């Protein structure tokens, strides 16, 4: 389809950077023609998998009798750990603690023990139920709340951050509050579950279509499990039906199983988890127990603080180490702590190994920070917003002393004051605060609550080597462009943004740039699309590739037309060479005839960043993204049920690459954060069985849960402090903790039952039950 006729007189290209262009797959999404892994036409003879999962949380495998499974109709093979030709490990942390299939013992309820391969998915799943497995059950730790953090085994070495002398500051502080908060986890609930389709090739080759955020890591894990070099494995993904961190490492198990079966049987094999299996057998956001001890003055200024962030790691390390690190990196949120000591505890449990989830521990750190603000506010009897403002880092441009993080990085780009001030104004915080007081005074059972919470989120992978990206750009002789990079598309519009960057560079209309599936065969050794870094890293790498080609075109034109290089200027869809203008397509054709290379591999690595984990010091983040949300709720104090009446958001994406895409990310991030902190409750029973393993019992936000009034804006004045791609800022994760405004509005409403004299210490998720219990607790204390 080539209907395009470039406008050679245009003043501006169509769809360059900062243009609000719609998602590239829009027309396919509405027609059902956007292809996800499970929609790919299956090769003839494709086999299907069913998993055999552990039914105990911790135990030795005394006997595994699979004879009935093997004899079941349609079954072609049954894989156990013995069928893994390479290494039975897909640990991303290097701890060698993540088996593809359980070997000798099981470590959580729902752990895959075997994998049935059958002619149909139905047959595979039915057969998987016929296994006779005997366990010798062992004691299991499920919850972390009562574990001894000093002696309990940890899955990865914990981190300590320290600046100043927190102990002394706490001792000498005029006021001091200690407390503990329980903070729940979150299931990703990507609408498209985990899925891989492996197609065997010649010799040791295999092609795996996998719904993964990290194709390179999936490739390396498959190679490792197959015992073949990475060059034998190609992993490809055009798009995912949602990722949210749940397909950063968690895609690897299905991918490895599909590849192993495909190579063993020499037939294509698809592994697609059922929703319940997906929820039971794959990792989630970590739940935390947060201990805090804060010292402050009578005004509410924090003087010293001590935190412990203990998390439920599950049975293996997976990404728990870095998740715990990022919780500590965000335990300050937007606040300066003069003296701080914070440590993580990565507690081993006999539950599924928890993993990345949008924010990667950062939101959990900020929940701790905001609980502390609430405690201080109630202690000194002020509006929490006043305490927030009192403790902010110095604003950008102020040469002050309150600008160093607990990890010793100087905060140079702080714009939270302006964001909060503008939001306070636009949301009429003061007016509504007053109105709510009046409402509550006259309303016996329904109480309203209001809160305005800030967000400061650090952008960069803390694993330095992950901050690199590659891209591949081809210009064909007709002037059309083929673009590929290491990032993956999961709905966040990454491919579109990168294509906008490439279009801008060549000054050609966006529809001349072809977006293509991410594949390890085109761009190698890429980082997972995570840490909000997709556009920052891949946009720069693609820009680099485009610039190389452009440079060659300039050299060529300068020489051919005998003019200085600076007289070759790329204009929309054309190039001015001296006084003449020729179509971009014509220049490309001429360059080809002159044997100019029209393809380039681009590369980018984030400058400036460094991080020494052993010392807890470094310039961990290239920059920060900021935002704030103001939410109002009404709570029925007889039932604990609540409604989000209104939310106003002002969020900073620098000079946005694409506003409509970014606003979608901000809205969606807020809603996901709100869900995490309110209705999404993961519940394991004493036996370690997840009892909320389907949308029947696990409640993500619905259309009707969205705030009744929802005003979302981007700062139109901000730009990245560092030279990021067109001065834009990352947007994937930073909006998620905006959901904190709802939790704190609920807390504010609950506090109304005791006239705002007692800090409600509302834990999360603040389900209606949890809210009701907090109300009853406050009522009892008020009486007592």
């Amino acid at each position, binding site marked *: 389809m080539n209907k395009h006729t470039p406008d050679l007189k245009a003043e501006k290209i169509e769809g360059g950077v900062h243009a609000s262009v*719609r*998602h590239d*797959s*829009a*027309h*396919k*999404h*509405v*027609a*059902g*023609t*956007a*292809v*996800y892994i*499970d*929609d790919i*036409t299956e090769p003839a003879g494709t086999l299907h998998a069913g998993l055999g999962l552990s039914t105990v949380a911790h135990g030795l495998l005394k006997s595994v009798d699979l004879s009935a499974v093997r004899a*079941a*109709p*349609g079954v072609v093979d049954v894989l156990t750990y013995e069928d893994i030709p390479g290494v039975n490990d897909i640990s991303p942390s290097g701890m060698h603690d993540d088996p593809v299939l359980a070997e000798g013992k099981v470590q959580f309820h729902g752990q895959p023990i075997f994998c049935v391969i059958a002619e149909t998915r139905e047959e595979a799943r*039915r057969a998987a139920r016929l296994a006779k497995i005997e366990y010798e059950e062992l004691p299991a730790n499920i919850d972390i709340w009562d574990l001894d953090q000093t002696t309990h085994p940890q899955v990865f070495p914990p981190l300590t951050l320290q600046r100043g002398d927190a102990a002394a500051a706490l001792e000498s502080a005029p006021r001091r509050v200690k407390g503990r908060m329980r903070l729940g986890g979150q299931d*990703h*609930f*990507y*609408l*498209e*579950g985990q899925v891989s389709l492996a197609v065997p090739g010649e010799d040791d080759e295999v092609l795996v279509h996998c719904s993964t955020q990290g194709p390179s890591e999936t490739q390396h894990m498959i190679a490792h499990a197959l015992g073949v070099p990475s060059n034998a494995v190609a992993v490809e993904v055009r*798009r995912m*039906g*949602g*990722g*949210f961190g749940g397909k950063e490492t968690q895609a690897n198990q299905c991918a490895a199983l599909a590849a192993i079966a495909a190579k063993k049987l020499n037939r294509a094999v698809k592994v697609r988890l*059922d*929703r319940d299996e997906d929820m039971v057998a794959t990792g989630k956001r970590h739940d935390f127990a947060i201990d805090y001890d804060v010292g402050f003055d009578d005004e509410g200024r924090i003087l010293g603080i001590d935190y412990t962030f203990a998390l439920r790691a599950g049975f293996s390390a997976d990404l728990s180490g870095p998740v715990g690190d990022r919780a500590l990196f965000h335990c300050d949120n937007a606040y300066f702590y003069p003296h701080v000591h914070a440590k993580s505890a990565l507690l081993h449990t006999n539950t599924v190994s928890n993993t990345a989830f949008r924010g990667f521990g950062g939101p959990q750190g900020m929940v701790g920070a905001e609980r502390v603000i609430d405690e201080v506010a109630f202690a000194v009897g002020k509006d929490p917003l006043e305490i927030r403002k009192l403790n902010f880092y110095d604003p950008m441009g102020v040469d002050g002393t309150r600008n160093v993080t607990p990890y010793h990085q100087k905060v140079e780009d702080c714009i939270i004051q302006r964001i909060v001030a503008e939001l306070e104004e636009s949301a009429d915080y003061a007016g509504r605060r007053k109105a709510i007081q009046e409402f509550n005074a006259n309303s016996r059972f329904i109480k309203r609550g209001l809160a305005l919470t800030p967000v400061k989120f650090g952008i960069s992978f803390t694993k330095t080597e992950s901050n690199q990206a590659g891209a591949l750009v081809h210009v064909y002789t007709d002037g059309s462009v083929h673009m590929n990079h290491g990032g993956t598309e*999961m*709905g*966040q*519009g990454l491919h579109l943004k990168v294509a906008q960057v490439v279009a801008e560079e060549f000054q050609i209309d966006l529809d001349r740039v072809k977006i293509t599936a991410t594949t390890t065969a085109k761009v190698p050794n890429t980082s997972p699309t995570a840490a909000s870094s997709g556009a920052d890293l891949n946009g720069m790498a693609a820009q680099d590739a485009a610039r190389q080609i452009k440079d060659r075109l300039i050299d060529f034109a300068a020489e051919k037309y005998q003019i200085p290089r600076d007289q070759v200027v790329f204009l929309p869809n054309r190039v001015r060479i001296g006084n003449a203008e020729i179509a971009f397509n014509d220049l490309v054709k001429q360059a080809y005839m002159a044997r100019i290379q029209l393809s380039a591999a681009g590369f980018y690595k984030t400058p400036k960043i460094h991080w020494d984990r052993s010392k807890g010091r470094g310039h961990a983040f290239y920059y920060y993204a900021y935002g704030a949300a103001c939410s109002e709720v009404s709570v029925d104090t007889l039932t604990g049920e609540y409604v989000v009446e209104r939310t106003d958001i002002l969020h900073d994406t620098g000079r946005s690459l694409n506003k409509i*895409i970014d606003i*979608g*990310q901000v*809205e*969606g*991030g*807020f*809603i*996901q954060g709100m869900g995490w902190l309110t209705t999404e409750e993961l519940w394991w029973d004493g036996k370690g069985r997840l009892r909320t393993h*389907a*949308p*029947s019992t696990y409640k*993500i*936000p*619905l*259309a*009707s*849960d*969205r705030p*009744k009034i*929802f005003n*979302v804006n981007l700062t139109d004045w901000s730009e990245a402090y560092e030279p990021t791609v067109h001065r834009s800022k990352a947007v994937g994760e930073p909006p998620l903790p905006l959901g904190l405004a709802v939790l704190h509005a609920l807390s504010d409403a609950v506090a109304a039952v005791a006239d705002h004299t007692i800090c409600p210490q509302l834990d999360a998720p603040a389900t209606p039950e949890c809210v009701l219990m907090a109300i009853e607790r406050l009522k009892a204390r008020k009486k007592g």
Partner: protein
Amino acid sequence: MDTALEDRFPTCPLSLTINGKPYTLDVHPWTTLLDLLRSDLELTGTKKGCDHGQCGACTVLIEGQRMNACLKLAVTLEGAAITTVEGLGTPEEMHPVQKAFVEHDAFQCGYCTPGQICSTIGLLNEGHASTREDIRELMSGNLCRCGAYTNIADAIEEVLADRASYREAAE
């Protein structure tokens, strides 16, 4: 199990119309409409989200009514006329709801979109929604994990406001 379920329970003949095209099929009594569409007929526009009737990703129209295809056994649909996302319009001539979803960017990852669109058409056919509140409530059976609810409601509101043109296109 001594004999395969397939031997004990023979397939059943089934005639129905999907997107205006008549089909004469033999299906297992346990095959859901969703599996029939996706696996047997390769109409993969309809998505499988939870397979429990709780997420709405598989919503299709049966005689104009919205229905979770994962909860409907195919054999119960003798003679029925089914419309899936593939049968709504063409790239050149999109259904007004498809068009509105594109114009309002009413999706992110897109996985719930076919279900949202079919559900919207069902909603419009039901004729109960007249306000934005109604839309939000009556669309709450279709989950969107990306949280694109604002734009989805905007898209539906636009079509609702322009009911005349919607009816015209439906005829």
